[in-house]
């Protein structure tokens, strides 16, 4: 019997292995931000920050009030980075020049729908840049713990909350496995030890297809 324990680090680590040298990546606030800590040796990616920067880097010791990330935390810019206005920033995003966007999730479903900006009557922070990021990026990665605190599946057959974007999510990485969304199914590409494909199918409230090449990833 496998007991589920939330593990955000594993999610960030697995996502960090997806990128290839030189790719442009936007990391959402929260869990996705952790991804930057786990990039493999020798892989250099370019972080896009939707408030107007390419080459997002760690904040200097003395913060610069004119240089923040999209969450208003002090940030830095790496050599070769640059700044631009919000029209250009979202042109880069909407125009498909961001290879990957990594976002947190309230719900994600097997059709690739994503809900992450609003719980009607409860929480209405606004979509910020999320709708453009999900509609525009070449590949959209949803990063989420597999289960809610209540034990409910975050991966759904059909989202019930208002959508951030329709049919735009390509990959989902949770703390139990790595999924591709294709043909209106979650296709399991990898499962993370100690979880098994059977456990994942049982604990996902959606159609999970175990692909023929599905393998165990045990070194995260």
């Amino acid at each position, binding site marked *: 019997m496998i007991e589920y324990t939330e593990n955000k680090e594993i999610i960030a680590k697995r996502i960090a292995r997806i990128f290839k040298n030189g790719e442009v990546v936007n990391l959402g606030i929260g869990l996705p931000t952790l991804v930057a800590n786990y990039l493999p040796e020798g892989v250099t990616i370019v972080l896009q*920050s939707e*408030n107007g920067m390419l080459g997002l880097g760690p904040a200097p010791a003395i913060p610069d009030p004119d240089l923040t990330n999209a969450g208003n935390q002090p940030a830095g810019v790496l050599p070769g980075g640059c700044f*631009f206005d*919000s029209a250009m920033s*979202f042109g880069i995003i*909407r125009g498909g020049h961001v290879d990957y966007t990594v976002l947190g999730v309230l719900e994600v479903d097997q059709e690739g729908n994503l809900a992450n900006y609003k719980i009607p009557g409860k929480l209405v*922070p606004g979509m*910020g840049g999320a709708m*453009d990021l999900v509609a525009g990026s070449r590949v959209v990665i949803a990063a989420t713990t597999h289960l809610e605190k209540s034990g409910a599946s975050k991966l759904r057959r059909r989202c019930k909350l208002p959508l951030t974007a329709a*049919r735009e999510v390509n990959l989902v990485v949770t703390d139990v496995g790595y999924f591709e969304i294709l043909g209106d199914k979650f296709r399991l590409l990898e499962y993370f030890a100690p979880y098994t494909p059977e456990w994942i199918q049982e604990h996902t409230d959606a159609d999970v297809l175990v692909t023929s090449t599905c393998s165990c990833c045990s070194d995260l």
Partner: protein
Amino acid sequence: MITKPVISAVEAARKIKDGAVLHVGGFLGCGSPDGIIAALAAQGTKDMTLVCNDSAIADPKSGRVTGVAPLIAGKQFSRMIVSHIGTNPETQRQMNAGETIVDLVPQGTLAERVRAAGMGLGGVLTPTGVGTEVEIGKQKLTVNDRIYLLELPLPGDVAILKAKRADRAGNLQYAKTARNFNPLMAMACALVMVEAEEIVEIGEIDPDEVHTPSIFIDFIVLAAKREQP
């Protein structure tokens, strides 16, 4: 090149009237014209419509307040057109209490709508928001088998901006991520006032490195010196 009047923040605020559609630069307060905002808060102008990336930060725990948050605390807007209100709970309280109308707009769409107003476009087609609540009430057009929403220009009566440097003609340079919506709003409003950290002579800014051309700027305010962090 003619020079633009340098005025005080209080004089700038006086030019903003009840009911004005007000564009304010800044992203969660980074790149906001804080001096003009403070004067406008003191002046108490009412019933304005805010066009801004967000409703800035008003953190009840830390007490931290940035950008347009003082204007929201003073209930100076009857409507806000913004992409994000999650860091200012007072915005959501006013919205839920029916004290203000909040139109949430995707950030990239907001940027293009402000740009379209400045650039004489009647609108733009964006894929953002298709299949979401954002599409409600909007015209949909199919181009090359993809569905787009028609998003309309968002002009304003007054823009207040923050720049790193202005020359006396009004050419502007912004610093780092403090640029954000400032150059777009500069083009979209009838009256444009900038709060600059430094005012230099004409000719001191390299013409290849101007971010906002002088012709968009009507008045310049010299920003108060920043406190050391």
